[in-house]
């Protein structure tokens, strides 16, 4: 019998819709994966000696790969949105970063879930890849838009920002493929049962 977190906590239907039908097991997975994704991004940036193209791409590879594994493990509505929300919260409170991108990240999560729902649902084989791809695309688009707004007086500077975001997005695309490979290996090793 499926016991949801929302019902356990005795909260209303609207809140149940907002936070999805996640069990505590799934909620814990979302929290741990979101934290791992965000903290590993910071660590990779530091290991790479700062913001160079390689570490920029690599941190996106690992972030997206972790997201694909999470979405394979937790095939539920709101998992992606809660992941986005948690990473934004951690980024905001620990690094003071992403204050403007936090709402955009949540919107990207909701759009990703909407696309997954419209393209076969959360149980579909490609749902994790589709969700992660749409989330990355929308959140990177918001980042690009914000960068262009901040640098509107200097077109050349905006181009530099666009290149940096483009490198990050290339890493995200590689992360989709790497995440798929990782899911297969984890299933083979018996660590992922979804």
């Amino acid at each position, binding site marked *: 019998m499926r016991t949801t977190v929302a019902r356990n906590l005795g*909260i209303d239907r609207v809140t149940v819709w907002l936070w999805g039908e996640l069990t505590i*097991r799934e909620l814990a*997975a979302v929290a*741990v994966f979101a934290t791992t994704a965000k903290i590993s991004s910071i660590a990779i940036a530091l290991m*790479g*000696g700062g913001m160079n193209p390689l570490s920029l791409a*690599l941190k996106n590879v690992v972030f997206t790969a972790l997201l694909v594994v999470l979405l394979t493990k937790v095939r539920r509505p709101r998992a992606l949105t809660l992941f986005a929300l948690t990473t934004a919260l951690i980024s905001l409170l620990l690094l003071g970063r992403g204050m403007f991108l936090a709402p955009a990240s949540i919107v990207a999560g909701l759009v990703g879930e909407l696309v997954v729902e419209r393209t076969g649902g959360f149980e579909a084989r490609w749902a994790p890849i589709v969700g992660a791809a749409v989330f990355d695309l929308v959140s990177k688009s918001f980042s690009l838009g914000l960068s262009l707004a901040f640098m509107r*007086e*200097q077109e050349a500077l905006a181009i530099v920002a666009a290149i940096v975001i483009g490198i990050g997005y290339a890493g995200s695309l590689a992360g989709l493929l790497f995440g798929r490979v990782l899911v297969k290996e984890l299933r083979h090793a018996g660590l992922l049962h979804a």
Partner: protein
Amino acid sequence: MQDCSTLDIACRLDIRTKLLLGFGGGVAALVLTSPSALGLLAIAATVYALRHGKPRPVIVLNLALVVFALAYFGAIEALGAVIESFRQPLAATSLSPFLRGAIVANLMLVVGLTMKFSDLREALDRWPLPPPLRVLALIAARCVPSLMKDLALIRDAVLLRRPTWSRAVLPLALVGAPRLIAVPLVVGALRTSDELAVAAELKGIELRPAPDGNRRREPWRDVATIAVAVVVLLVACGLHVAARIGGVSS
């Protein structure tokens, strides 16, 4: 993470005040275009950041911004000397993106440098978050210290595996690293989430009320800082309007 025992302002401010200042400053930086208004905000943000008790990162950040701006304008000038289409007048508005960067970076640096894990947990306890989100955020916040230790181990393993000749070239250490980094991270995350879930299921989901013994002290500092920020913002808006009127009339 900094020890906030020193007599500095930002450490004594509530996290909500720091976030409010960061968000307000960011919105103002985004909306305003006048270099004088942005310059005033940048100076105010730098002074505010310098008061956090550990000025070195703030100085390094601002110097880096200055060096980046000089390098950028140098490159534009050099390109303009060679290629006709790159030639552009060096208007004062060209500085605006850099000033915006200085405002946002300084305000956010204060949040990053003065935040402690205990503050994070305290803030999460105080905020009126919906129950599932509070559970989610608390699990996430409690994972951070152990995750940092795991990442240090992974980093050491990656550094040990790279060839000796590449040690001078740090980014090369990351070639082929996705597998080395992601596999232990994912396996660790799967195990941690399972353990946490089992623990939560066994104990039940406990929704703790906000603790009474919050370390909130001196709320007047928050009020005073916000008041100063509002005054600075109003002056910056005045400068912006004056610049626009001056631009229209000329």
